[in-house]
C-alpha cells in the first residue's frame, strides 16, 4: 500500500522497561515469625527516613523544592535532608528532563549510591521523554536506571509528588524488590517482537 498514515505511531510495545510486579507481601520462604518482624521493622525504618539525593535537573526540580518548602512539607515524611553526596543518600528523585549529555552522569550517580536504593522518576520527561520526543532527550530515564515509582505531570504538583512518595514508602514497607537494572545483561527481557 502506497499511502501511509502519517498520524499512526509505530509503537508496538510498551515503553516501560520495568515488568509489572504483583502487589502483596513478598516474604522469603523459610523465614519464621522473628525474621518477618525484623523485615517489617527494617521496612518501616527505611521508609520513614528516606534521604533524597539532590538530583533536580529542570522544571520539576522547582516543584521538588516547593515540596520541601513550607506549604507541602516533605520533612514530615522524614525526607528534608537532601544529601549533596550520593554516597549518603538512598533515594534518587530524578526531577526533570535527562539529556543525552547528562545520561552517563545519571548512571554514575546511581552507581555511587549504596544499597538499598530507590528511584522516583518525577515528571513526564523523566518517565517517558515527556513533551520532548527528539534527539536530545532520553526517552524515559528507566532506560538507564531501574525506576520504582513513576510520577506523571508537567510538572507534577507537589501533592502529586507527595502521593508518589507515599506510594514508595508503602512499597518499601511491603518489601517489594527493585525492578531489574537495564544495564545488567540478561536481566531485561525486551517485551515485543524478539522473544
Amino acid at each position, binding site marked *: 500500500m502506497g499511502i501511509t498514515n502519517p498520524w499512526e505511531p509505530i509503537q508496538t510495545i510498551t515503553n516501560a522497561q520495568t515488568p509489572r510486579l504483583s502487589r502483596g507481601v513478598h516474604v522469603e520462604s523459610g523465614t519464621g515469625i522473628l525474621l518477618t518482624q525484623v523485615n517489617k521493622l527494617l521496612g518501616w525504618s527505611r521508609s520513614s527516613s528516606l534521604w533524597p539525593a539532590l538530583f533536580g*535537573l*529542570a522544571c520539576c526540580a522547582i*516543584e521538588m523544592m516547593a515540596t520541601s*518548602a513550607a506549604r507541602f512539607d516533605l520533612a514530615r515524611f522524614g525526607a528534608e535532608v537532601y544529601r549533596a553526596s550520593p554516597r549518603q543518600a538512598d533515594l534518587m528523585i530524578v526531577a526533570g*528532563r535527562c*539529556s543525552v*549529555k547528562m545520561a552517563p552522569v545519571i548512571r554514575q550517580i546511581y552507581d555511587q549510591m549504596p544499597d538499598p536504593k530507590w528511584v522516583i522518576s518525577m515528571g513526564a520527561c523523566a518517565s517517558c521523554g515527556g513533551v520532548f520526543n*527528539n534527539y*536530545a532527550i532520553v526517552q524515559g530515564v528507566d532506560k538507564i536506571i531501574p525506576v520504582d515509582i513513576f510520577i506523571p505531570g508537567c510538572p507534577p504538583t507537589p501533592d502529586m509528588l507527595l502521593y508518589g512518595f507515599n506510594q514508595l514508602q508503602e512499597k518499601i514497607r511491603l518489601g517489594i524488590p527493585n525492578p531489574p537494572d537495564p544495564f545488567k545483561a540478561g536481566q531485561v527481557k525486551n517485551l515485543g517482537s524478539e522473544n
Partner: protein
Amino acid sequence: MLEQHPELHITDSVQIDEKTHVDTMTINMGPQHPSTHGVLRLIVTLEGETVVKIVPDIGYLHTGIEKTAEAKSYFQALVVTDRMDYLAPLSNNLGYSLAVEKLLGVEEMPAKAVYARVLLVELQRIASHLVWLGTSALDLGAQSMFLYCFREREMILDIFELVSGVRLMTSYIMPGGLQAELPPGFDAKVQEFLDVFPERLQEYHDLLTNNQLWIERTKGIAKINSDDAIAWGCSGPVLRGSGVAWDVRKMYPYAGYEQFEFDIPVGSNGDVYDRYLVRMLEMQESLKIVQQALDGMPEGPYQISDHKIVPPPKWSVATNMEALIHHFKLYTEGYRPPKGEVYQRIEAPKGELGFYLVSDGTARPYRMHVRAPSFANLEALPKMVEGELLSDVISAIGSIDIVLGEVDR
C-alpha cells in the same frame, strides 16, 4: 602571582624560583552539585583557594526546543516555550506571543488583554526573583530565606492556578491575547497578595541588606564593570548592577508598558551586593506596576477578535458555521503568517529575552531561535570570578541568576 605568571593558567605546577613552586589543581564542580542552579558543570583551576581559570561546561540540559518548535504549529510551539526559563514561564510566553503577533501583523490588542498581560508578567517577575533570592541565600547559608521566599511564591502560584489551572507552565499568554477569561476571584486574590507582600519584602530587607555576614559575602565580590558587561552581552540585573541604566521595558516599550509608571533601579559597583539590591528594588517596582494594572483594569474582550488567529468561543462553535470552520482550521492546520522574520525582545526577569522567528509562509515556524539572557550572562562568569576565592564562585553564580533550561534550550 597571577599577572606575573600567565603559565599558571594552564599547567599544574610552576617553578617560581629555586625554592618555591606553585601547584594548581583542576577540579570539577557539577553537573550534580548542590549549589549550581541546575546542571552546570564548572571546570575550575585553583591555586590554593584562588580561582585561576574557570570554564563553564553547559549542554547538560539541551532539549532541542528550537528544533521541536520547527515541527509544531505556532500555537503548539507556545507550550514548549514555557519550559525554557522555567522560573518565569509567562515571560517566555509573552515574548513568543509578541513575536508571533508581530509576524502576523496584529496591530491592536484589547486593553484588558494588555493590562492582564502586564499584571501577570510582573507577578511572574516577582515569583522568579523570589526563587533567586531563596536559592542564592540558601547557597550562602541563610537557609530560612528559602522557606520564606517559597511561602510568598505559593501565593503567586495560587493566582496562576486560579487563572489557568496550572501552577507553573501556564501557557496562559498566547498569540492574540489570553487563553481564557480572567476568573471572578482574580481581583480579590491579587489584592490580597499586594496587601501582604510589601511587609514581607521589608522583612527580607531587614534580614539581609544590612546584615554584616551578608555584606561580607557579597560586597566587592565578582565585580564586572559596565564596559565589560556590555561587551560580554550581559543584560538585566547584571547589566544594571554595573551601572548601565538599560531596561528593555523603558528603551523599547512593548505590550503596553509605556502606560505604567515605574523606575528602574541601577547599581554602581557591579558586585554581587549591587545585583542583589537591584533585584530587591525591582520586586518593589513590580508591585507598583501590579497595583496600577489592577486598579486600571478595563472591561472588554481578553482576545483579539480575529478568529483566523484565536479560536472562537466554544459555545459559538456548536451553533455558528463560520466559528466551526475557524476552529477546525486552527486546530488542524493553524494560521500561516506571511513570509518574513522578526526579532522581539522583552525584559525577562533574567535579562533581555529575544525571540527570533522566521516564517516561510507555512503553518509551522521555519526557525525559532531564543536569545537566552542566562547564556550571555554565564559567558561573563569567568570575567567576574577569575582571581577570586572558590566560595565567591558560589555567590557569583547565585547573583547572575542563571536558569540552565534557557542556557541550554
